[in-house]
């Protein structure tokens, strides 16, 4: 088990991502079209932190929502019999039509969760664009999906697992990698 990101590095990574978002969406109306959607569970607090970071830079309030992708998973019918994954609430309190959606997740791995999230988002409307933010990209993609903003690129082997801990949920800010 090794800690690959501590609270300080996490804070700086998210601050850098906030700046990159404003650089990449620098057109006159772009900022007004931005909206953050965090993927449950840990994408939601990360999205809120990025919203706070952007507010700190230019005083803009970026609308923020939460997305649960359980009902869109491609592996629901494949798992051995057991309890179904818990479905939690999706809360997107704004129209995503013609918005630049910043989709936020903690770890990017196979890309299948992001595929499900894209399907789920499209059911809410037709955004102008969807950009992907991840705190950690650990590689091993199974689908043609790439993040637009990455907190940290983390080379891993398939036998390892990456755990993101956030103060809001786990009481501390930390990313660790462990042999499973």
């Amino acid at each position, binding site marked *: 088990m090794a800690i690959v990101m501590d609270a300080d590095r996490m804070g700086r990574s998210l601050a850098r991502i906030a700046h990159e978002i404003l650089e990449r969406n620098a057109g006159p109306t772009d900022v007004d079209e931005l909206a953050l959607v965090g993927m449950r569970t840990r994408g939601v607090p990360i999205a809120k932190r990025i919203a706070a970071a952007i507010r700190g830079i230019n005083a803009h309030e970026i609308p923020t929502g939460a997305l*649960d992708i359980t*009902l869109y998973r491609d592996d629901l019918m*494949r*798992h051995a*019999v*057991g*309890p*179904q994954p*818990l479905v939690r609430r999706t809360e997107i309190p704004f129209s995503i039509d013609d918005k630049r959606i910043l989709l936020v997740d903690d770890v990017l791995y196979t890309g299948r969760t992001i595929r499900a999230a894209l399907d789920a988002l499209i*059911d809410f409307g037709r955004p102008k664009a969807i950009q992907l933010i991840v705190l950690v990209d650990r590689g091993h993609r199974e689908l043609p999906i790439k993040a637009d903003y990455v907190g940290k690129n983390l080379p891993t082997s398939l036998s390892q697992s990456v755990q993101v801990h956030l103060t809001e949920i786990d009481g501390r800010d930390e990313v660790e990698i462990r042999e499973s």
Partner: protein
Amino acid sequence: MKKDLLGIGDLTRDEIYLILDTAEAMREIGQRPIKKVPTLRGKTVVNLFYEPSTRTRTSFEIAEKRLSADTLNIAVATSSVLKGETLVDTAMNIEAMAPDVIVLRHASSGACHVLSRICRSRVINAGDGMHEHPTQALLDAFTIREHKKRIDGLKVVIVGDLLHSRVLRSNVLLLTELGADVWVCGPSTLVPIGVERLGVRVSTSVEEAVKDADVIMMLRIQHERMQGAFIPSVREYFNTFGMTPARVSRAKPDVIIMHPGPMNRGVEIASEVADGPYSVILEQVANGVAVRMAVLYLLAGGVED
């Protein structure tokens, strides 16, 4: 969860809460512009209804369609049942076409249990005779929890035709399991013998029963199941047991009034109460879709064993 949902008695307390919590998430889908998720794509659900039903059948069908299941409805009036086919034969024939879920409404208590034993498909009880109607009790609990934020410790009064009601049994099992103080009230001819063994208090005075109630749940007078004279007249029943504004005023100021439908206005409930500010009767109907989506997902959302 078990393979089938035959009654509330099959569920643990944790499973009841899992269904209610999942229903919270399902309700949001009904508020979207595109009210559909792909979760049950490729699954087939047969709605087999041997008794008339508007609410329950429509509610199940909407729930199934919102989860992208393929649905088909068999109404007995247009089926081979009229040619003399038995329930078991009909079920075996449907089963041969490999549906994933059968939703059954039947006039005989225990019909779902028969189906459950012979079918590989999952069976959901949509009301069997005078026995159980589990999804109704779940949607009632969901509606109560939404208004009161809890079920534990609430005084819930169920008034009406207790004898013929499957809604009563399912609700009593569920609400007592979750810690509510349940009272039942009706004319003595319509109180089932031994009902107090289910852990409820029995009263034949509405005035006494509704005092300080948090929830009043009305049950329909089921004329179609009555073979004999259980009540002197509809008018007398209303005068003695009908829910009127005066009786409602004896309950807590934030009482909610529920009814599983279909209502007999002027028999068990006055129109002023049914349409009044305390009535959550139409919310119950709306919540029914979310609760049935939750049950369908939890039963059929995974692979078969």
